[in-house]
């Protein structure tokens, strides 16, 4: 009997192999292909060399290597893709999921313990999948006298506002879901929604602990929105526009953090408060009010709120990067697309495939996305560290920091920005 797998039987192995192949085929044909067909019906297909594509023609072209690229390229630039996948929800959810896992492992390592370990055989990789499935399978309990419609709506609203916030962030040059001229004002408007939704869910749960948690969350978020907004005025004064993409473009040679460090610090602290991170996590203070306004959520509702809060975390980190660390600006390190692939095509063994329409995306876009992601991950790292290093702040200290210390610093920052502007160093006529 072999040592490696004592209970190995060849027959069983072959049976499981054929089983898997059978199931893959079934799923692909009965579910996969129809799904792609439906998507193709809704997506407005491009006009390729004179003829408007029908979904069936598009479908065949998808699986034909030489004809697929132009179709994929056209799909890339549709709005649906932007919202669902790249700069929008998909990219953010991926980063948010990564943050959840990294936070648990990082906090564990900082506390000299192991963190999720057994899920997924190697260092707990599948822990996130495990949590997700668990939350989906758990029963959603609605408190008896809860206000049912609002209680149901609260988590969905929470994720929706977080996604709306994510959609305003420019990830790469030209790659932003909603490139509106008053981008920064829209961000403040959406940030304004969060306290309302917290109070809605806390109030509708109709039980003591969530109510106290909700009130504390309201106090904290409202009192920290003011320094949050004031600290960004410095940036707006220097760039002169509210459009986030233009703000990023104006930071090609320098980053605003170099000139407005106080603004960056005030923004970072009030961001921690908005996200209810550890020094300011009074709304769900375990040792005083069980789990704050999250107490009554169970099952997928809790899952949605968690996803929403980590989306919010990604969005705030991304906002910090866009405003102070120069978004996608960074030295060109991405290798240019090799020319010979476009001219002679790819030699795959005996045959060479001619692929018209490459490269799918430009080199600046890839370089910009890389820099943006690196900076966001760095900022997220600095948002996660305080959780392992600081205790919780008391409610009255929280409010005193919010109201007088941070607002005062924000004003100082505005004066610095004005000084820079009138000294002609930065801004429209500036020398830099």
């Amino acid at each position: 009997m072999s040592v490696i797998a004592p209970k190995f039987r060849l027959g069983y192995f072959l049976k499981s192999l054929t089983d898997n192949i059978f199931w893959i085929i079934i799923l692909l044909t009965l579910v996969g292909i129809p799904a792609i067909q439906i998507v193709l019906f809704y997506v407005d297909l491009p006009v390729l060399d004179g003829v408007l594509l029908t979904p069936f023609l598009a479908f065949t072209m998808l699986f034909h290597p030489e004809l697929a690229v132009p179709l994929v390229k056209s799909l890339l630039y549709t709005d649906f893709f932007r919202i669902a996948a790249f700069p929008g929800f998909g990219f953010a959810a991926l980063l948010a999921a990564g943050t959840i896992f990294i936070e648990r492992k990082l906090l564990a390592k900082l506390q000299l313990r192991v963190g999720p370990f057994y899920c997924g055989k190697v260092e707990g990789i599948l822990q996130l999948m495990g949590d997700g499935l668990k939350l989906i399978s758990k029963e959603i309990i609605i408190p008896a006298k809860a206000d049912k419609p609002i209680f149901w709506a609260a988590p969905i609203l929470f994720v929706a506002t977080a996604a709306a916030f994510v959609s305003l962030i420019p990830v790469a040059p030209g790659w932003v879901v909603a490139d509106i001229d008053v981008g920064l004002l829209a961000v403040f408007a959406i940030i304004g929604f969060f306290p309302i939704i917290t109070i809605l869910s806390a109030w509708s749960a109709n039980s003591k602990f969530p109510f106290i948690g909700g009130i504390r969350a309201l106090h904290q978020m409202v009192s920290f929105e003011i320094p949050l907004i004031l600290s960004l005025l410095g940036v707006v004064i220097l760039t002169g526009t509210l459009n986030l993409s233009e703000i990023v473009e104006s930071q090609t040679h320098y980053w605003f953090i170099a000139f407005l460090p106080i603004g960056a610090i005030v923004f970072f602290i009030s961001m921690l408060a908005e996200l209810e991170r550890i020094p300011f996590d009074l709304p769900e203070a375990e040792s005083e009010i069980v789990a704050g306004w999250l107490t009554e959520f169970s099952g997928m509702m809790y899952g949605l709120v968690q996803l929403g809060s980590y989306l919010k975390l990604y969005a705030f980190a991304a906002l910090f990067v866009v405003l102070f660390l120069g978004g996608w600006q960074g030295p060109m390190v991405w290798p240019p697309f090799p020319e010979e692939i476009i001219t002679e095509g790819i030699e795959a063994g005996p045959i060479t495939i001619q692929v018209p329409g490459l490269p799918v995306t430009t080199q600046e876009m890839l370089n910009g996305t890389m820099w943006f992601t690196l900076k966001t991950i760095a900022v997220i790292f600095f948002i996660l560290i305080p959780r392992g290093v600081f205790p919780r702040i008391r409610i009255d200290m929280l409010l005193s920091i919010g109201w007088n210390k941070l607002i005062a610093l924000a004003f100082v920052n505005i004066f610095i920005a004005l000084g820079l502007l009138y000294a002609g160093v930065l801004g429209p006529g500036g020398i830099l």
Partner: protein
Amino acid sequence: MTTQLPPGIQLEKVDERIMTLNVGPQHPGSGHMRLIIRVDGDRIVSCDPDPGYVHRGEEKMAEYRNYITNIPHLERPVIHDSCNILYPYCLGVEELLGLQVPERAKYVRVIASELNRFTYTLYWLAIYGIFLGHSTMFMWPAGDREFAIDLLEKLTGARVTHAYFVPGGVRNDLPANFEDVCLRQVNYLEKRLKTYGDIFYDNPILISRTEKTGVLSRQDAIRLGTTGTVLRASGVDYDLRVKEPYDVYDELDVHTNVLKNGDSYDRSKTPWLDMLESCNIIRQALEKMPKSGSVRVKLKPNPKGGNDEVYKRVESGRGALGAYIVSRSKPEPYRVKLSVGSFRNLICMPHLLKGEKLGNMPAVYWSLNYWPVEADR
């Protein structure tokens, strides 16, 4: 027809401004006891501690057991400081029965009780950290406690309930190469303890949460008869290991750490400084320990104490822990009274919490080095 209330329960006059809060036994912010706190807005108006949820009648049961079978029983009030709570009982019984404890046993006792000071104080510090919401300050002490527990497990055979001290010495001698393992782990533990400074004691957010809260002045500390780290945090230089050295503490030089302003910050710092001091004591004891000699005096099968009483005191993790034993020449002690540090510090709670903010309640409550199970006995 006024209903006859069961004894001890009175009706409460409802005053619309004052709200009564039960920081009850199940509350995440209090141990196994209830604090009946009357709050006016955010200010605590009065606090009436109601211990007794884990009262097991230790002293009554001690009267039915002879001197040896009392050992695993009398360590129950605070099992993770079991050597220190058995120490005064053993010293008292030794004086009653006139036993001469061998020199090596005294040194082994000092090492075991100092190691136990680690396990208790680190456990207390971990809970103090989580009360303030500092999760790392829960994980680090809880992890570093494993060094002391590992040593005690090698020495006594049990992680927590050691039952290691016996009238007449200790139950067994040191295992094989215990000295250098102990030295190595105590040195590493000391290095670990030093890292607490940056992340906990010099942490500005923690300082702002605990400084000037629950200030116990020097006179009040003496007048209220507090003991141990609570007393030393208020500026009274009183450590039984120095003032009334028992066993071999007079041959070891013990330095007592005294801090002056008596607020919860100082009360959270003195145990930490004591632990750093314990490292030195263990090192000295390991050097000065006689290398050979028995560690226990053989007892007669059913020893009977004379018609006498004795009061012995020891510096435990929570302060002076006294054992008052009255014996009437019977194998069982006639009366055993454990005067424990937590019960003596309990009086501070109503005194300190009056006028305090509700947010400070966990910081002040747990800084009194109060172990509910021990206070209830």
